[in-house]
């Protein structure tokens, strides 16, 4: 029995339905992956080129006139490790933020749980992440750095990164339907966000006093935790805890805002 209730009326249908529509989520993710590199000259090579070129540039700058203390880890490996997660976040957030605007007819011509649209874009970005991880593995082999025993914890940080990117994508995609300013704000936001994340520098540079404030940025705990896991450095559980909590808070806020806005999507898009 399908019940149609006025807008604003409480309904749990939306959330439970995502499971019922999981196959659609799968096909949309697959579509986003397939379409991403169609009609490009070098195809999926972009997924490799992007992290490699960034790593080279950072390495040229930060092993030359500016240096960071990265312990035993060679700087290129250090930077690539951060870029692996950061580029995933950047791709996922930028694609999913425009997911509704780019799929207008999905919203105005057919019903399905709306959350699926930004989620599919986020999941599709996982495909590029696989390539980054492969590049990272090759680099580790090149520098003869074996993953430490704590590397088993690495997937946990990938998971937090996924949740954080999904939450941000959900929020921005909904805001973008209503406010087209989002389109202009996203590249800027991502730029600032990267600088505020320990991608090309270590979080240890920040004074201990400020580090927890810094950790409100989910990417701080994600990148730091991922590195610590791979290279066998001690985990800073306080930073990771704050980042995880803020990821969860971001997800809840995003879902609430999305839930309040989605009823109007078809009318205003």
């Amino acid at each position, binding site marked *: 029995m399908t019940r*149609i209730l006025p807008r604003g009326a409480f309904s749990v249908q939306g959330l439970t339905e995502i499971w019922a529509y999981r196959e659609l989520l799968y096909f949309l993710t697959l579509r986003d992956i397939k379409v991403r590199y169609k*009609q490009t000259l070098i195809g999926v090579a972009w997924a490799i080129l992007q992290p490699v070129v960034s790593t080279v540039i950072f390495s040229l700058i930060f092993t030359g006139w500016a240096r960071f203390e990265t312990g035993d880890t060679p700087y290129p490996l250090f930077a690539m490790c951060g870029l692996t997660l950061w580029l995933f976040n950047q791709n996922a957030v930028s694609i999913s933020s425009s997911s509704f605007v780019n799929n207008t007819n999905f919203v105005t011509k057919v019903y399905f749980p709306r959350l699926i649209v930004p989620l599919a874009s986020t999941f599709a970005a996982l495909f590029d992440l696989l390539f980054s991880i492969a590049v990272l593995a090759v680099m580790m082999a090149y520098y003869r750095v074996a993953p430490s025993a704590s590397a088993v914890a690495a997937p946990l940080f990938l998971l937090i990164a996924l949740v954080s990117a999904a939450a941000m994508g959900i929020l921005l995609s909904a805001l973008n*339907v209503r406010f087209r300013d989002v389109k202009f704000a996203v590249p800027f936001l991502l730029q600032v966000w990267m600088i505020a994340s320990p991608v090309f520098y270590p979080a240890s540079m920040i004074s201990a006093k400020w580090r927890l404030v810094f950790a409100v940025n989910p990417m701080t705990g994600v990148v730091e935790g991922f590195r610590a896991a791979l290279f066998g450095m001690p985990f800073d559980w306080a930073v990771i805890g704050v980042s995880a909590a803020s990821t969860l808070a971001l997800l809840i806020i995003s879902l609430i805002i999305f839930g309040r806005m989605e009823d109007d999507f078809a009318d205003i898009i």
Partner: protein
Amino acid sequence: MIKARELTKEYVLGGAATTSIRDALTALVKRKAVDRKILRALDGVSFEISEGETVGIIGGNGAGKSTLLKVLSRITKPTYGAAEIAGRVGSLLEVGTGFHNELSGRENIYLNGAILGMRRSEIDARFDEIVAFSEIEKFLDTPVKHYSSGMYMRLAFSIAAHLDPEVLIVDEVLAVGDMAFQKKCLGKMRTIGESGRTVLFVSHDMSAISRLCSRAIWLKSGKVAADGETREVLDAYLHEQSQTGAEHIWEKADRPGDDTAKLNSVRVTDRDGETTAIIDIRQRVYVEMEYEVLKDDKPLVPNLHFFNEQNVCIFVTHDWGSEWRHRARPRGTYTSRVEIPGNFLAEGSIYVGAALTTYQPLDVHFVEWDAVRFTVADSLDGDSARGDYAGTMPGIVRPVLHWDTEAAG
């Protein structure tokens, strides 16, 4: 089963649309309601449709038909009111939703099927059927951007046609595509309706509605104006909707004509003499014109001109049988009536022009194009010219002819 109670949908004009953050902030700071106009697209719409009914929704542009379908398809939520639908709902407000040009036919079948709510296992099971129906076997692995528009539509439609919902909601899908496509579409909808599932169908094509639906709901300015047997509702709708109805009566001062004769009225009736805007294709239909002759010095020949929707003249008929064919007609009021046999006109709207002419020397006393209009409907009972064929039939007339078929030996 669909149960709608007081469905109301309001749109805020000039306020809720896409805005920039700046506008939103300005509105917030100034606390000034931006000149907001509320449009009620649906205004307390209630109805109940039982399982297995095929119901047509008609109404003019902006009457709320599409909004109603969007609300029932859950694309948008009502502002007030509620509805319940029992069974799986399939809605086709467009065919090919979510098709991606870069993907192959095969990939789009799965994607579009999933968007329409089909399970992967269902798509797998019907995959061959979908491909056969769409006739694109050879191009299954070609990106759809290389398809002709006909192939694209065929593929899109055959996916939709293999959707197997308990409640099907369809909007004007028939308006697109070539004839062969529309034919398949109508045939498929008929099969779905006959298999005991509930179909809700919006169309501007009155003959398609009368052919497929046993019941019709007429929406007017967001309200239910009529709900009942298709023929009655269409009749009322056609009568109101166009100024050219089944009856046209002129005010005494506005009557067309010259100083010899004036046209009083023209009307379309069934065999019982009842004015009707819609007529079964098998039934005789009558067109009668009433006119007043003011001067008794000329022979007068009434004549009627029949046009279809494409403005093709189907035929012209003159009253050559009258005793006044070659004689001057006495003053007075006359009614001339012509009988058009059943199984002659094709389905669709027929516009009738009425004229009164003297032929020697030629003098047209009045000619009123589009004086009346009526719709010929084929209810698909099997004994009209279309027989068991549910699709669109070409041709400006549709006679039932005598055939002989003999086995050769």
